[in-house]
């Protein structure tokens, strides 16, 4: 398979997954702010902080009001990680490999893009929540159509890999939001407000019901454990990386537990580490510090995949070429 084609299908999936995750945490914050006690200040800045693009946001918008943050993350065509930019890039990638993907996949991406583009034009705030739901659904639909219509060959595995890596990265960031979400003071830990915030965090990972089945009580350590280490929950970091590792081995035909390139080695090491980690280790080192390190490791895996399989000189003539993994 051409390196460029593998690169495009990998990023097509990353961008779709990215749009879905941005929709998740903006929507949850939207709901959360409605539940705040009267008199408490709205907190939108944490969302921007977790993207890693706070400086860019401040330069362009100044204050982190709800309108500014929603506009930035959702409809800002200049911000490369906004939902609309992600969709535009996903569509560009899909268009450049139309001879490889199924026509159903192309139609799905095209419809998805047009839906977001329409929403960006109307910007009706009363239907925002409905819009985010549509984004999540469209992303699931794309994944389903891809699964059901594309042959599960090398290209398919590259696509899965892109989606899973993006998902692992976003789960670290969703968890990290709680770190930045301020309680009025330390005494509020464990109060209903604290509880509500953890619940909303689980919801933004579509993990609330599943968590309840496994754990019943909401405690910070258990929530973190579920989202980081659970081996069966499809949005947990460990699950995503472990599945990603399998895809990589399918691509190279290397037996699992061994490696033949730096990408396999990086992801294999990371999975092994997660496999033997306990949540107490994480809490002891500090959750935020752990998540920070995890993001760097996932980025490193992404870079190794690029070097190993997509290796091409940097060409800066158009946007598709400079696919970045900021955020």
């Amino acid at each position: 398979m051409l390196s460029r084609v593998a690169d495009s299908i990998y990023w097509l999936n990353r961008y779709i997954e990215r749009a879905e995750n941005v929709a998740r945490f903006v929507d949850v914050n939207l709901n959360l702010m409605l539940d705040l006690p009267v008199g408490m200040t709205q907190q939108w800045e944490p969302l921007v902080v977790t993207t890693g693009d706070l400086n860019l946001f401040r330069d362009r918008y100044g204050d982190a009001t709800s309108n500014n943050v929603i506009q930035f993350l959702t409809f800002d065509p200049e911000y490369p990680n906004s939902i609309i930019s992600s969709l535009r890039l996903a569509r560009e990638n899909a268009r450049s490999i139309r001879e490889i993907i199924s026509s159903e996949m192309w139609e799905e991406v095209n419809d998805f893009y047009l839906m977001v583009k329409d929403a960006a034009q109307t910007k009706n705030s009363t239907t925002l929540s409905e819009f985010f739901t549509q984004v999540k659904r469209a992303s699931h639909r794309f994944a389903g159509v891809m699964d059901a219509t594309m042959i599960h060959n090398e290209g398919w595995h590259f696509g899965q890999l892109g989606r899973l890596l993006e998902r692992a990265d976003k789960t670290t960031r969703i968890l990290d939001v709680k770190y930045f979400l301020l309680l009025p003071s330390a005494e509020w830990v464990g109060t209903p407000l604290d509880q509500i915030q953890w619940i909303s965090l689980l919801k933004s990972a579509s993990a609330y019901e599943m968590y309840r089945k496994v754990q019943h009580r909401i405690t910070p350590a258990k929530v973190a454990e579920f989202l980081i280490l659970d081996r069966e929950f499809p949005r947990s970091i460990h699950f995503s990386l472990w599945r990603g590792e399998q895809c990589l081995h399918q691509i190279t035909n290397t037996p699992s537990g061994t490696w033949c390139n730096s990408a396999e080695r990086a992801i294999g090491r990371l999975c092994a580490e997660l496999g033997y980690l306990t949540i107490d280790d994480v809490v002891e080192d500090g959750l935020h510090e752990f998540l920070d390190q995890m993001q760097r490791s996932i980025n490193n895996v992404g870079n190794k995949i690029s070097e190993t399989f997509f290796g091409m000189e940097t060409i800066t003539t158009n946007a598709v070429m400079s696919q970045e993994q900021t955020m």
Partner: protein
Amino acid sequence: MRRGAVHLESYDPQGFYDELFLAKGQPRPSAAPLLEWIQGLSSAELQQHHKTAQITLFKLGVTFNVYSDNQGVEKIFPFDIIPRIISAVEWTKLEQGLKQRITALNLFLADIYNEQRILQDGKIPAEVINSATGFLKPCLGMQPPAGVWCHITGTDLVRDKDGQWYVLEDNLRVPSGISYVLENRRVMKSTFPQIFQTMAIQPVDEYPSHLLETLLNLAPPQLADPTVVVLSPGIFNSAYFEHSFLAQQMGVELVEGRDLVVVDGYLQMRTTKGLRRVDVIYRRVDDDFLDPLVFRDDSMLGVPGLMEVYRQGKVAIANAPGTGVADDKVVYAYVPEMIRYYLGEEPILPIVPTYLCWREQDRKYVLQNLDKLVVKSANEAGGYGMLVGSVATEVERQAFAQKIQQNPRNYIAQPTISLSRVPTLIGDRLEGRHVDLRPYILHRGEEIYVHPGGLTRVALKKDSLVVNSSQGGGSKDTWVLTGD
């Protein structure tokens, strides 16, 4: 007649040559079954079919152009559901004429990049060739596989008021449009299945197989499983849909310049499993952009070093670089001469009488008769750089006169041809609209294949003679009938 049916008996060719009618209310015999069937439809039904066809094309993503602002705007090439019909007898003659013409053009290309006998014998002035922008000195001395230079040609034909066919121009570089021919037919078959069962229409679906054969033929014979690729400038190119479509239909890789690299003296493509050798390129990139080391050094679309690999015979390129010299509209005027010179035959298909502005006498005539002529620049396509004198304003004619005087070599002029017409669905009725025809010819050396039919482009604007998609043209399905 049913209420609301299409009024065919009142359809009037109005003194033009009509492809489906002999005279008012009188269908040509070849078109009679079609027209009879259309007559049975109500105009609402016809419009419904028309709408369905457009929606299908849009869904299939059969689009062209406009990708300028990063926002993903593709246009659908308007499609009219009333086909153009060509009888078997007529087609046979066109086919012979096209084969003759492409044979001579190919001999000309081989000659002009090697011995240049035709110049030495004074049949074409050397200055015409030396001043042609498509004449590429780096290609001098080249000997492409099997001596074939132009593997894929799209020749534009028109017919005049009296029904006479003329060659309007040759496209020997990277002719576009075949994907519309195939997709239009697919849509027509699903829209009008009944009529396909009653009329003997030559199928068109074999094109990708013939194209693949033509390309595989270029690979060195000792290779068991040669790698063929389609080279595209990428998604920003107006014909990107076609590039992707052809690669998909042939089951070969669609590559861009950045996927390719010259390593160890061979052209290779970057794959996830390392470099892989490429043996044949169907290039949809213009000559100038193929290799920055030889042609335009600012080009990012080609591959540095490609020409050297090509020169050594380690990769085949279709069409061969350098074929553009025969696209030059001044060179076009000499094709009948080439046919006589190389083949010792009289041309089967005439060209449109052409005045060459660099000849003093011709120029004088052109400048005095601008209001009666169509002036074209020698190297532009897509209906650009053109003056239709009869409809231009005095100011426009003056501006063109000045351009001609400044650079006479770059302009030719031809009498206005009154292009033939085909009934076309305009609103709820059929009106005559002007058409041209671009058949596609595949040259394999031993054998030349003319694809039955080709792209019929139609000027949708009333009375317009300009059929280019970039100028508001559309297309029609072209039916070549079998038997008699």
